[in-house]
């Protein structure tokens, strides 16, 4: 119970307390319950439709992401090929990009005057652009796959890479075709991690905001979008709070079902070193799979990213560094000017603090959940995940009214940025580590205890090496989430210490080609920082011989 104390305390102070405060203020402005502003919630079918749309687009996005990314997870988990780490770091990049920037990249590729349409129109002599994705559900789905591809790759791939090959080999020996062996042996063993990854993707899409607003256009609204409209533009706090509650309750429900499912599907497995599970693609089948996946990644992830990089280096008609040079200058002498190196520094600083906090809280929570079999734990698991699905504006407003007195006078503290990032990031650590902890055979730990190791020793020498890979996966998530976070950062960051995404939005706030170009240059730097962070964390992992 002591282990659970720290994560629960963190949640209580930085999540439940502010949330309670804002709900109390919204529903009981004068101290008594007043629900007059809520009649719109039930008097029209609008909100019901919004809830339905939110759910089905999230479900469809999750399924599509799974279909596209599962073969990719296989490639990264089981095959060894040159350039693999670099390719893996590429898949991590979309995750951090602000939605305005992603929208710009997609427009540059698939917009009415984009590369593909221009090419098709010239090639086939068409009058109108054949691809009309703007403000359609297809654009939303595509962006969700683009963003979440990496979640499946990392979580499912992580589990797949430590799965013993002997099991499928045995199935093959007993006459099963590769497909049957995959369906009957591999898939059931992967099921817990597929569930965990799908759940994260689903929650992300369920609370999708920027993608819906920008790529979907005003005809589509998720609950999150509606909360923002009610809270900021209409200032109907009761409605915003009620919708937040609906969002939280639904998420809790999904999480609870998931937790229940996961507890029933986890099988204990002896983990295998990657040196044994990974092989070079020698068979034709493996080569085809590898080729097809690299093509998918290049098309889905590579081309939009490349479009951004090209835009950042193109001024007028040719190659130019003018946007990068402009990043270093402050011609208007603005007091809010931030040299790119400093914005990168703040981003990395916040990300490292968030990473450490998330690891501490996430590991403790996961350890607790893996040991506890009680009914309380089955409720705590979904509880730990809730911050992931809570509207940033609701929580941000909660901070304003809750954290306003010492010792918690943090409203304008610089610490609020990494704290807010931790709140979104540590659930990823939990979800990456928990399947690894649960699938670890009890006997390993028991033998250590039997041989006289203390609990701490057991943890350091037995548990830690086995879940190290999962920890690194969680760390990469925490780092990338913090680097890319925008929705909460915009509320809590101080103007003199902006992160890279905030700097990008500043440039996009005013007209002028130079501003746009600088936003693209800054986005390119954001990609570089992300890839570098990923490679650094990978290096820590790879420096270990006995790695699982």
């Amino acid at each position, binding site marked *: 119970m002591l282990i659970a104390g720290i994560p629960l305390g963190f949640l209580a102070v930085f999540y439940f307390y502010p949330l309670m405060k804002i709900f109390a203020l919204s529903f009981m402005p004068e101290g008594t319950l007043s629900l007059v502003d809520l009649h719109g919630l039930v008097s029209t079918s609008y909100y019901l439709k919004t809830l339905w749309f939110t759910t089905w687009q999230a479900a469809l996005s999750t399924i599509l992401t799974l279909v596209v990314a599962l073969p990719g997870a296989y490639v990264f988990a089981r095959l060894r090929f040159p350039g693999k780490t670099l390719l893996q770091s590429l898949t991590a990049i979309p995750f951090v990009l602000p939605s305005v920037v992603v929208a710009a990249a997609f427009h*540059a590729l698939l917009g009415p005057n984009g590369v593909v349409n221009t090419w098709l129109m010239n090639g086939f002599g068409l009058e109108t652009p054949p691809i009309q994705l703007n403000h359609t559900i297809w654009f939303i789905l595509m962006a969700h796959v683009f963003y979440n591809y990496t979640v499946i790759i990392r979580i499912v791939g992580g589990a797949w890479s430590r799965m013993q090959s002997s099991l499928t080999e045995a199935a093959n020996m007993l006459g099963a075709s590769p497909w049957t062996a995959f369906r009957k042996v591999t898939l059931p063993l992967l099921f817990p991690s597929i569930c965990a990854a799908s759940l994260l993707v689903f929650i992300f899409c369920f609370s999708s905001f920027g993608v819906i607003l*920008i790529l979907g256009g*005003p005809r589509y609204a998720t609950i999150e979008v509606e909360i923002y409209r009610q809270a900021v533009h209409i200032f109907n706090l009761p409605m915003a709070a009620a919708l937040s509650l609906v969002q939280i309750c639904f998420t809790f429900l999904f999480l609870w079902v998931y937790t229940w499912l996961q507890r029933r599907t986890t099988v204990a497995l002896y983990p295998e070193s990657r040196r044994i599970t990974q092989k070079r693609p020698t068979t034709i089948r493996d080569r085809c799979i590898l080729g097809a996946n690299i093509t998918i990644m290049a098309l889905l992830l590579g081309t939009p990213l490349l479009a951004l990089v090209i835009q950042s280096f193109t001024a007028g008609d040719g190659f130019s560094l003018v946007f990068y040079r402009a990043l270093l200058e402050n011609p208007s*002498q*603005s007091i809010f000017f931030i040299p790119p190196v400093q914005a990168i520094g703040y981003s990395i600083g916040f990300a490292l603090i968030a990473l*450490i906090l998330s690891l501490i809280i996430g590991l403790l929570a996961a350890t607790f959940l893996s040991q506890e079999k009680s009914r309380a734990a089955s409720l705590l698991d979904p509880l730990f995940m809730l911050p992931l699905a809570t509207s940033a504006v609701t929580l941000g407003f909660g901070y304003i009214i809750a954290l306003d007195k010492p010792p918690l006078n943090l409203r304008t503290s610089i610490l609020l940025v*990494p704290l807010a990032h931790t709140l979104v990031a540590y659930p990823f650590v939990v979800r990456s580590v928990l399947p690894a902890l649960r699938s670890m055979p009890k006997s390993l730990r028991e033998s250590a205890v039997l041989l006289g190791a203390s609990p701490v020793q057991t943890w350091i020498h037995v548990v830690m*090496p086995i879940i190290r890979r999962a920890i690194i996966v969680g760390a990469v998530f925490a780092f990338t989430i913090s680097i890319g976070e925008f929705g909460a950062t915009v509320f809590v960051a101080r103007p003199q210490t902006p992160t890279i995404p905030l700097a990008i939005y*500043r440039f996009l706030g*005013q007209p002028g080609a130079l501003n746009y170009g600088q936003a693209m240059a800054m986005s390119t730097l954001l990609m570089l920082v992300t890839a570098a962070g990923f490679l650094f964390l990978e290096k820590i992992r790879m420096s270990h011989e006995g790695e699982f």
Partner: protein
Amino acid sequence: MEAPREVILPGDGFFYFSEEVIPMNRRILTVLILAVSLSSLTGCSRENTTPGIETITVMTHDSFSISEGVVADIEKDLGIKIRFLKSGDAGAALNQAILSRANPLADIFYGVDNTFMSRALEADIFVAYESPLLSSIDDSLKLDRANRLLPVDYSDVCLNYDKAWFREKATSPPARLEDLIRPEYKGLTVVENPATSSPGLAFLLATIGHFGQEGYLEFWKQLRQNDVLVTDGWEDAYWGQFSAASKGNRPIVVSYASSPPAEVHFSEKPLDDAPTAAVLGPGTAFRQIEFVGIIKGTANVELARKVVDFMLGRKFQEDIPLQMFVFPANTSAQLPPVFERYARLAEEPVLIDPELIAKRRSAWIDSWTEAVLR
């Protein structure tokens, strides 16, 4: 699984197993040290409050900007330190000011506009201040008779068009709102959603002022027939759909009268002419006025007043155009050359009583949504 390298006997300590663990720990240590030093570094730059020097906190929105030199001048003149807090877009920042009224976050709020003005006044978060500098401010901008909110800058929300596009197609650019519903302008316009965007709301108000509360919906229904595109924010409209600034194919966009000078000022190479132009004929634009106010409950009313005076004074006002691309409210402020040359103000812009806006805003937005989006 690899065989354990050495057997641990009961009672044996840490040493046996550690050869594999140490490099990891060392690396984690490096990361930790790096992080802690970074965090202490950022911690240091956090607050340079010198004891004995009063700090005035100015709460504002994301788009606010000002020169270092001007801030240094206020700080020197008044012997104070100015701290800025940015809290999201104009609506989000104001709401946070209202939510924190029991324990204010700041002394001054900069950037309540006339569409949000009544919300701010109803919440009663500002104290009145008769600044002596009000005499040099254009009377048409003073909307709060009690002077709780003082006009500080303004701009006109209007249509912008892509000059090259219209030159190439040899069609005339739009001159009036009615032009947008003519067949030759089918599929050319992109506007922002008034429910989620402040220029979007301002443009809706322009149409309400021009066509009247009875006629504006008819205009919008016809605009819908004419294939108008609606985006949720200015960024997507301008950077995603407007042909002059993106790969989009819409040559008409709702933006600001000061966008053309911004296009010249922020061009990648020097331009002789703006690539875009603003439509500023009578009754086509909405004048958006921004106000500054002293937040109720400040401990430093006297100092806050001096800072407000400074903001309405010439030095600050002349800095406004190139920082925020809006017009200064002080009539004696000199405009910079790029504004003199490329920026025009709307003739007879639409102005709607802020109280009427506050009262009807939701209903107007709902009817608009019904007519244009559903």
